[in-house]
């Protein structure tokens, strides 16, 4: 019996050790981490690309396709910050909606250029699943958009790209390493 329990304990020890390592990695990152606010996130995001940051906000939306994304707001929904789940995070559960969370993560930039928009348009026009491409806004109903809504969004982004005078638009998000719910 004791032998059996011992065998069972071996994988448990490995599991605990790997969890502990994850926590240590997260703590090391905390030391040189800038704290950004939701309301000013997009003003300062370009200075922190690829760097660890901390951000706090209220969860307004979690992605129902696997829970790999959530969106943070601060009092108003005019500014939404996209948080994606890093490797250590299983999912962002729907029960987080309305909760205040503190996130430690790495700031990511996604560049959208004319080629990206052309490919997105081609995919949207396919009858099959087309959720994998495109910009996730977290707006009410954005996951249930029809083909025409998506094509309108693509055209709107084409206009934004043209008006920006640059060859790409930048979309910023945070890839979460860890998060905690603020009670």
């Amino acid at each position, binding site marked *: 019996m004791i032998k059996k329990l011992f065998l069972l304990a071996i994988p448990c020890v490995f599991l605990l050790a790997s969890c502990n390592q994850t926590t240590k990695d997260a703590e090391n990152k905390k030391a040189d981490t800038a704290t950004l606010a939701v309301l000013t996130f997009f003003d300062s995001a370009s200075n922190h690309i690829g760097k660890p940051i901390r951000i706090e906000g209220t969860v307004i939306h979690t992605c129902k396709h696997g*829970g790999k994304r959530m969106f943070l707001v601060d009092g108003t929904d005019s500014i939404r910050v996209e948080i994606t789940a890093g490797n250590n995070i299983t999912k962002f559960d729907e029960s987080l909606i309305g909760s205040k969370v503190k996130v430690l993560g790495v700031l990511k930039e996604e560049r959208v250029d004319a080629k990206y928009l052309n490919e997105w348009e081609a995919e949207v026009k396919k009858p099959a699943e087309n959720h994998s491409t495109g910009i996730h806004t977290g707006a009410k109903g954005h996951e249930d958009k029809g083909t025409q809504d998506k094509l309108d969004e693509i055209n709107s982004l084409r206009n934004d790209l043209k008006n920006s005078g640059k060859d790409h638009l930048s979309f910023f998000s945070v890839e979460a390493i860890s998060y905690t719910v603020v009670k």
Partner: protein
Amino acid sequence: MQRKTLRRWNNAVHRDLGYFFFGMTLIYALSGIIMNHFKSGDFVHPDYSKRYEQLTLALPAGGLADKAYALKSLEQVHEEKYFKSYITGTGYIQIFFTNGSLYIDLITGKAELEEKTPRYVLKEFNLLHYNNIKHWFTWFSDAYAVALILLAISGLFVLRGKNGIKWRGALLAFTGILIPVIIILLYA
């Protein structure tokens, strides 16, 4: 190896893999039904069942949609004890409580109450099906996928005679392959 011995091994593999992966089969089958209907739009959310109610609620006095107004609005739907937070946007307030939210149009007073109930157990099955957990579950689910291939192949040779692969089995297997082929040809 003699044909009889081969068949004995085949049946033993089929039997033991079937027993061992019984749980995984149930997990993938049940969450598969959920995913299927979620993807085809029958479910709003794979992990939660949701109920919506259209209401008309009082507008805030003085036009100020603040926490007091949020709590007062929740009182009307008996959820004030479960208040979490609220946000405001152009012409609306959205109030969150433990099991849902209340969206109020601040111009018309029209409101939508969303109440959600977790699909207990199925929610965890979905988590496994999506392989959000990763780590060694990836390998275990790969092993299950390989076992399914072995189960399918060994299943063809379990029975002998006309009920086996020589007649009835071949007919059913062929029909089962034909159906997805037709669907691909028609819709893909």
